């Protein structure tokens, strides 16, 4: 009996071209567009400042500094006066440690860009200073001179960022794939609620009820197909991130966590999405109403939950609000898997929250459906 009901649900969804578009094509397109669009925001290699340098010292050290700046991939040396940063190496710069470079900053440069510039400059200046120190101590200790010369002040050498064992730094694809996977999974609200409302309005549910089909069977027969559809969505979206996005000169998705964790978090998300869909379906009075409410709630949950705007750039109050969206729990789970090599135990709390939310919504929707059938829908 259950298999016949599941088959029926599959046939209805697969014949709904708009639903297929919303479930599979739309999230894939979102992933592609957002990964490419945000590529530069998440790549440190893309940061480049134009600098104008005037060397008044004309010393060996100032030449060394110039060479370092020229070799730095984040700087482009220009002779034009409207460079973002104009640097003057003052006379006698090489004669004392207390001598400073003079830097003029163009008005349009934002303060966060200045901070990045300062960090990059500091690395090159320190390198040049260490070189000078190395030369000065050479006549006293060859070993000390070599040690100073080999000092590397680049961030990679000074500290290693580790995300629970992984050295992976997030790229735009790793940011956008989980966000749009979560959003796409909740798109089942549209077809599920539309089919459900139509069944209710056409008295098909009443007919099923008179055929000894319990509300639990009806709910299960709807939940199982959409859980499978959600799984197919997840793996298609992952494949888009891994294999299609790189064709657009954008980093491929790297999955560092366990496959089991992906199944677990997407299962939790599925139950949540099915719960919300069922609740809307049994509460709405028409399919138009269900589609509108479903669409709006999907966008709101996504906006609050960090799908449209990453949570880490939200103000603190919004980040707190985000914790109330199930999409946020799912997103956190996926980000932990992709960026922190999470296994099932690490995403367990997110998965349990999603399951509890989804099951509560499902139970509530079953109660409402029972009452509606008893009232003649």
């Amino acid at each position, binding site marked *: *009996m259950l*298999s*016949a*009901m599941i*088959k*029926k649900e599959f*046939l*209805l969804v697969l*014949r*709904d071209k708009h639903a297929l578009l919303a479930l599979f094509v739309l999230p894939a397109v979102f992933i592609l567009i957002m990964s490419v669009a945000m590529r530069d925001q998440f790549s440190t290699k893309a940061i480049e400042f134009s600098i104008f340098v005037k060397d008044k010292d004309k010393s060996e050290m100032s030449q060394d500094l110039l060479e370092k700046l020229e070799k730095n991939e984040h700087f482009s040396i220009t002779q034009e006066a409207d460079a973002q940063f104009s640097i003057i190496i003052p006379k006698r710069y090489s004669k004392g440690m207390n001598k400073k470079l003079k830097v003029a900053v163009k008005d349009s440069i934002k303060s966060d860009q200045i901070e990045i510039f300062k960090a990059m400059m500091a690395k090159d200046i320190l390198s040049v200073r260490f070189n000078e120190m190395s030369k000065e101590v050479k006549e006293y200790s060859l070993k000390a001179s070599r040690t100073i010369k080999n000092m590397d002040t680049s961030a990679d050498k000074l500290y290693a960022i580790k995300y629970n064992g992984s050295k992976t730094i997030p790229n735009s694809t790793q940011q956008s794939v989980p966000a749009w996977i979560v959003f796409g999974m909740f798109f089942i609200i549209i077809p599920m609620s539309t089919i459900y409302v139509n069944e209710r*309005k*056409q*008295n*098909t549910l*009443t*007919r*099923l*009820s*008179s*055929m*000894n*089909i319990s509300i639990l069977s009806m709910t299960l027969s709807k939940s199982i197909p959409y859980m499978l559809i959600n799984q197919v969505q997840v793996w298609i979206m992952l494949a888009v991130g891994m294999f299609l996005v790189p064709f657009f000169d954008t980093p491929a998705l790297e999955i560092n966590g366990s496959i089991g964790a992906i199944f677990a978090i997407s299962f939790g998300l599925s139950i949540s999405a099915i719960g919300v869909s069922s609740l809307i379906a049994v509460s709405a009075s028409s399919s138009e109403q269900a589609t509108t409410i479903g669409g709006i709630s999907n966008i709101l949950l996504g906006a609050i939950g960090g799908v449209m705007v990453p949570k880490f750039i939200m103000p603190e109050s919004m980040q707190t609000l985000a914790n109330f969206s199930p999409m946020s729990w799912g997103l956190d789970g996926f980000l932990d898997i992709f960026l922190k090599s999470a296994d099932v135990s690490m995403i367990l709390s997110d998965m349990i929250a999603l399951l509890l939310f989804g099951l509560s919504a499902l139970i509530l929707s079953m109660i409402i459906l029972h009452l509606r*059938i*008893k*009232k*003649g829908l």
Partner: protein
Amino acid sequence: MIQISNISKSYGDKKALDEFSLTIKEGSVFGLLGVNGAGKTTLLSILNNLINIDSGDIKIFGLDIKTQQREINSISSIIPQHLAFYENLSVGENLDFFAKIQNAKKEDFEKALEINSLGNLLKQKASSLSGGQKRRLNIAIGLLNNPKIIYFDEPTVGIDPKSRNEILDSIKSYKSLGITVVYTSHYMNEIEKICDEVAIIDNGKLIEQNSLKNLLSSDAVTSLEQHFLKITGECDA
């Protein structure tokens, strides 16, 4: 036999059925008449276990409606006024689905197809059927569990006269199969054409129950419609 004894059902303050009693003989084609809001749909919903009664007793073929709901559902079937099937599935897929969820036998599947002349439409999408064909599919689904009782809730609404006659002829044929038919309609001529016995309900109460022959011979009326208007004082049936 369907034995309804002193049942009442209220929605808030409104009494839909009030100390209502009725007996329907096995194998008869029974017409249920009443104006909108008289209590016909409530009665059909109660008989199909879709809503519960507040008080009273109902026995259907000896089964108690309060304790043997599943058994009653398995021997009865309701043909709803709305087309309660899936427009995006074919005729065959619809019948197959409703047959499987009821564990219907193959011969019952074939019989439902034959009676409703749907054999050559199996691959056609339900949404592309004509109004009459859709009605026939709606009825065929109700026959899949080989019911002993079928409840028809205005099954001929919105279809052409030819299709209506075909449906009425098929319903008459159920009598020969021993099926008890309970039929509600706004069309008095349909009731006259197919029913052996008629009950008239008004404001949740049984006004009259009699054989069609007796009803038409009383009060010197020439049609059921005349009789109905006379005893209810209503224009809308």
